């Protein structure tokens, strides 16, 4: 898929975010173009999860601008529903609705929010279940599924809304190493189909293989960024080198 070079799909400029007195983001800027896969890596507490949560307005920002396809997030008049129809999110803890089956979890939002009719939504949901390789699990409740399966249902649930960009917040951090692979494969396939993805992840091998651009954050700022090849092999900043040496 060709990427649109002209206007970034997501444009983050000089974002500052504080929780009370604690400043978590201290002026972060980055661009995401359509079809790109961006990985944000960094130590705990560096603000990476906070950053992507600002993109779909789960957290508000004190200063700066986030433009998502022309919608300004740091705007008191922002239509949050409109924004969230464009931006999907997958969480570390899956956050599936436990009182609904896998199929219903995927179908619910298109029916209630996008006002699709039930047959159409169900058809799409079944296709998505097939896509994430969970055939046979349509009638299972989240409690009956493994972590990796739940996470794939969560990805399918986001996809059902046909978003323009999906945010992944450390989606494999709560999974055991065997199931991590199946989720990463799903994300990789999404990326190859041209979905714009912003991932916060600790999976360096995955980032290296799939990302178009990698950002390293530490203590609320972007320390360094680059394409995977240059980033991993030719890191310039000493903090980056220290971080990479610890995890690679």
């Amino acid at each position, binding site marked *: 898929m060709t990427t649109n070079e002209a206007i970034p799909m997501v444009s983050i400029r000089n974002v500052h975010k504080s929780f009370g007195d604690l400043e978590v983001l201290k002026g972060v800027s980055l661009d995401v173009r359509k079809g790109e896969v961006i990985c944000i890596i960094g130590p705990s507490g560096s603000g990476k999860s906070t950053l992507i949560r600002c993109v*779909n307005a*789960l957290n508000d920002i004190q200063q700066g601008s986030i433009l998502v396809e022309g919608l300004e997030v740091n705007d008191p008049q922002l239509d*949050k*529903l*409109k924004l*969230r*129809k464009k*931006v*999907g*999110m997958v*969480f570390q*803890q899956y*956050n*599936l*609705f*436990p*009182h609904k089956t896998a199929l219903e979890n995927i179908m*619910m*939002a298109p029916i*209630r*929010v996008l006002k699709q009719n039930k047959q159409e939504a169900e058809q799409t949901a079944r296709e998505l279940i097939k896509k994430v390789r969970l055939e046979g699990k349509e009638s299972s409740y989240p409690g009956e599924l493994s972590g990796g399966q739940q996470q794939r249902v*969560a990805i399918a*649930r*986001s996809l059902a*809304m046909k978003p323009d960009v999906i945010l992944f917040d450390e989606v494999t951090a709560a999974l055991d190493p065997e199931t991590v692979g199946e989720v990463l494969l799903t994300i990789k396939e999404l990326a190859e189909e041209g979905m714009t993805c912003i991932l916060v992840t600790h999976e360096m091998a995955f980032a290296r293989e799939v990302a178009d651009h990698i950002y390293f954050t530490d203590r609320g700022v972007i320390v360094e960024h680059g394409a995977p090849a240059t980033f991993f092999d030719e890191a310039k900043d000493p903090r980056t080198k220290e971080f990479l040496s610890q995890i690679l």
Partner: protein
Amino acid sequence: MKSADHKAEYQSNFQGGQKVAYQTDMPVMMTPSPKAGPSFRFSLKPWHGFVIAMACIISSGIAYAVTDKAEASIFEVLVRWMPLLLEGFVFNLVISVCAMGIGTFVGAGLGLGQISLNPLLRKFSWAITQFFRNSPWLVLLFFSMFLLPFEFKVGDMTIPLPDWVKAIIGLSLPVMANVSEIVRGAVQSLPSGQWEAAESLAYTRRQTLWLVILPQCVKRMLPPWMNLYAILTMATVLASIVGVSEVMTLTGQALAAEGGRTDLLAPFYSFILLLFFVYCYPISRWTVHLEKKFAVIN
């Protein structure tokens, strides 16, 4: 920061030159924080029923023994009055069901008001809940009996408000407050991830509440709600104090009609106790069963 305080406390405990083998931010054993459960959990046990039945039987036995041959035996007296007493007991149950119904309906609304985004509504709901939760039920009953009019006019119609209706309203007030807390507690016990997931799917707050949050809350609310009902049922006898003709009043009248025989006091009142036990104990058991079934592991 809490962890820093703990660290300082932990380190200060080792001042006598002892080396701490393993440094952590938190002490190894933390005193368990008090469990945030319902503040008052009344549970009926089988031995309660056994004791009441024994009281009934023994007092009846004594009454039988001291009964003059000329007077009617205790069993004859009880059997004679039983239809009336049972009728009175059913009336208690009617009061309890009605008060529970009204209290649950209004209380649920108050509970949702407590989590509203509107600060005024939130504070107002909180204040009402706290006021009626911390007032003695009998006092609230008295208030409703004496403050509510005995009839009120709607247009041309005059609607009478009999005592028992006022008692229902009076008892529904503490129920309302407790249900409000049950609802609020259940909603707040759900992980915030549920709210976040629904929000990121572009649900409105109302959709999130009605499609995601409240359905999950029903299970959590059921045990404390049923417990409240058992307590309410037993509290319906308070209505006798404000003049409503229910089982306690009728028992008093029956005893008076029997010439105030003191040997009948214990059998009659323990019979009433038994009635309440037989009704409330299965509810209690079912509550325990539901609690185990819906045990939530976060």
